[in-house]
């Protein structure tokens, strides 16, 4: 493989930062959640790249675990968003500014 590993890490860093800006800027809870997924994927990419660099599979196993955790997290998070929408008829995070139902 001739592509330097750093290139993959730079792509990963850019995706992570785009995800961070998405979480900070967007108002729709669903899109914020998608940005979190983007961040998780960026970190997975970095893990696999490091795994390749160090000639070991530990990074790939960790990426696999983070995928499993992300799947569980998405399911619970979306259920919470649906519940909030039922209560407030909106998915904007500005409308859910108070904790009490």
């Amino acid at each position: 493989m001739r592509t330097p590993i750093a290139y993959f890490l730079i792509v990963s860093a850019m995706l992570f930062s785009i995800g961070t800006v998405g979480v900070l800027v967007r108002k729709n809870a669903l899109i914020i959640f998608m940005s979190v997924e983007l961040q998780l994927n960026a970190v997975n990419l970095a893990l696999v790249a490091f795994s390749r660099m160090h000639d070991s599979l530990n990074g790939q196993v960790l990426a696999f675990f983070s995928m499993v955790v992300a799947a569980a997290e998405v399911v619970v998070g979306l259920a919470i968003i649906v519940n909030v929408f039922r209560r407030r008829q909106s998915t904007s995070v500005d409308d859910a500014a108070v904790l009490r139902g």
Partner: protein
Amino acid sequence: MPLDNVVFWVFAPISVGSALAMLFQRNAVHAALFLIINFFTIAVFFLVLGAPFLFAVQIIVYAGAIMVLFLFVIMLLGVDGNESLIDRLKGQRPVAILLGTGLVLELFFAIRAGIGFSATAPADFDAAVNKGGNAAALSRVLFRQYFFPFEATSVLLIVAAIAVIVLASRQRRAITRAEQAAEERSARTPRTEPA
């Protein structure tokens, strides 16, 4: 130009571009579709980096299951594209964009300081590590070294499934204390009907 270089330079702009498109997209469905493109490009990177099993898992789990769930929820809630442009916190947007670019630069310099831009991976990954195929090699590591964490994830998945059933079931809303007090008050003072 070696093949993996070509693949990288074709898919890296698509990856970053689709992520940016997701960020700027007003419509939630379009944002989800751009995110699916991004997940596919990341899957291709996994393939180039010698992780064909994760390539398959990425497409099946992320682009398949998770994004279908996202689209299902978007369509269930019927979210329209109107997102208010008014910031609750003053100047949140510019500060967020500034911090994002700062984060990119910081990571860029961290990567340069950490491993440098010319370090390439060892060439014999498939022969040395992926012996007998990536899936077999990965399962050897997973079920020998990481067996307990693997079992822990199965517990996690069951807990998540139960949590979703609890969250999604339409139970009768518990009466809050304020509502209870209001009810008692109205019971104590009978409505005075105009005679």
